[in-house]
């Protein structure tokens, strides 16, 4: 057997060509990084971004040159496409990782239980100490109320559009949802502010919730619509053919089938509004003291707290540290929400196990 194999290997094969070893992309990447550092030092470039770009270019061209020499032009093009994808991936990930790293590195300095459980009530913005308890309370209440308003309206609108919507009204609703998707957050804030001025009201948390609900609704409608459209028509027909009324079909078959995706969409929209600053600035105003009542008096919120610590502290390091710690808290909050959404989506997904 082995004899026959060696004989056949000696014949020129049209199916097999020379190929680079598996580790070659890594080697080329390492080589281009070394070369880029060399060029950067030699030419006196002090921006690391320039070094990175040079490394990326060297990697793409080097891959092409080496592969073209060894493997041929077609394989070289294939490798260039692959390396372009990798370069794009690295370009996208580097800022993300760097942002996360900076936030964590600067945020952990003052982030402790004291920070999470105390307000800025008696601490001047330029002094160390204080915390974000009041901002967390404000954010939770405002975002929670916004979700209570926005999510049901959004989900019901999507159900109407997918299951019932025909003709003019549905088209109008779709159009307005599209328009709402494009509303800048400050405009939503101004809209509620104009109502507040009409009734001569002072800033309070719930006004912010209303603006956030306006921002949240179109996102929920869009994502829920897509999820409902994914439910196969056959399931609706199967249920209708059993003599189940349409509303029960929607409630018991269509929505449960897509509930994972719907909840994910709602969670993502919550994550989106949790970081909104502009409407909160206009409508909730900010408050260094703890205010547990969203329906009366100014409140704080995490994004607003970050903004105010930066803008009103006249360059005090303590305030900057607090702003970073609050940013870290906000990112953690959004990430926990996303993870919960994923968990629910997996838990509620249609089961396929045997």
């Amino acid at each position, binding site marked *: 057997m082995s004899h026959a194999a060696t004989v056949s290997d000696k014949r020129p094969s049209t199916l097999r060509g020379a190929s680079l070893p598996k580790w070659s992309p890594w080697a080329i990447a390492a080589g281009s990084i070394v070369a880029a550092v060399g060029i950067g030092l030699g030419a006196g470039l002090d921006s690391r971004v320039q070094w990175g770009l040079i490394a990326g270019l060297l990697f793409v061209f080097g891959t092409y040159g080496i592969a073209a020499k060894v493997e041929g032009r077609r394989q070289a093009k294939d490798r260039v496409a692959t390396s372009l994808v990798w370069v794009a991936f690295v370009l996208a990930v580097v800022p993300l990782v760097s942002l996360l790293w900076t936030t964590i590195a600067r945020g952990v300095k003052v982030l402790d239980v004291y920070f999470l459980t105390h307000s800025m009530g008696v601490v001047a913005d330029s002094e160390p100490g204080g915390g974000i308890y009041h901002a967390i309370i404000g954010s939770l209440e405002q975002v929670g109320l916004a979700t209570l308003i926005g999510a049901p309206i959004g989900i019901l609108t999507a159900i109407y559009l997918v299951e019932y919507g025909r003709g003019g009204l549905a088209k109008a609703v779709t159009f307005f949802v599209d328009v709402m998707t494009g509303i800048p957050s400050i405009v939503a804030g101004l809209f509620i502010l104009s109502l507040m001025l009409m009734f001569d009201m002072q800033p309070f948390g719930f006004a912010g919730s209303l603006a956030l609900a306006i921002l949240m609704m179109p996102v929920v409608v869009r994502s829920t619509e897509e999820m409902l459209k994914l439910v196969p028509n056959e*399931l609706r027909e*199967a249920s*209708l*053919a059993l*003599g*189940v009324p349409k509303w029960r079909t929607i409630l018991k078959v269509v929505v449960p*089938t897509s509930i994972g995706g719907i909840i994910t969409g709602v969670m993502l929209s919550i994550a989106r509004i949790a970081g909104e600053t502009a409407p909160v600035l206009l409508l909730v105003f900010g408050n260094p003291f703890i205010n547990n009542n969203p329906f009366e008096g100014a409140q704080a919120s995490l994004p607003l707290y970050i903004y105010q610590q930066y803008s009103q502290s006249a360059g005090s390091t303590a305030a900057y540290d607090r702003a970073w710690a609050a940013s870290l808290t906000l990112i953690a909050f959004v990430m926990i929400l996303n993870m919960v959404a994923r968990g629910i989506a997996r838990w509620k997904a249609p089961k*396929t196990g045997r």
Partner: protein
Amino acid sequence: MSKRIDVSGLTAYYGSHKAIEDISMTVEPRSVTAFIGPSGCGKSTFLRTLNRMHEVTSGGRVEGKVLLDDEDLYGTGVDPVSVRREIGMVFQRPNPFPTMSIFDNVAAGLRLNGSYKKSALSDVVEKSLKGANLWNEVKDRLNKPGSGLSGGQQQRLCIARAIAVEPKVLLMDEPCSALDPISTLAIEDLIGELKERFTIVIVTHNMQQAARVSDRTAFFNLAAVGQPGKLIEIDDTERIFSNPSVQATEDYISGRFG
């Protein structure tokens, strides 16, 4: 508890497109009636008009009469939901509810209609699964998801789900076209048993299947693409397959056309 269906002068539309034209026939109780004919001739559309599923499609509407034991399904004030409780349906592709277990799938019709006794539920499920010849295969895993079954088992699960609500008539839209020969045989045997209790109407592309399972066969055809489909003839299956009265039927059955 099966009922007879009398169709007279039935025409169905999708929007402005006329899909089937002027169909009249009688479906006898406790029998199997097969619909055969080339693709696009309106067999499935006609089947769906029989339990008012046709109008679920947007733009679907119907003219003419369908009498279920002298009661017009399209009469004024008739609730399509109660029509569908009387006339069940099994679809081409097995479509168990993916969020539900095997048990819940069979119980779905009763539960979603809200008219059941909790204590009787497991009896109904067992009876329906036995009726669909699936009980022995699934009795140990009733709480597992229905989508984990094989295609043939899923289709029998759908049949069990359909018969659990005790319809009078069972419509089957090419129930075996997605199944292998062994599962097909299982379903055909099942049809033979079910016709003792239900009136069965089955659409099939497989003429041997029509010949094997049905008592009467209806042949549908259309003059040309875009033209509405028509009922060419309906007769005892034996006669249709041995000595049909219309030449087109003989051509179709003997494979000279279509």
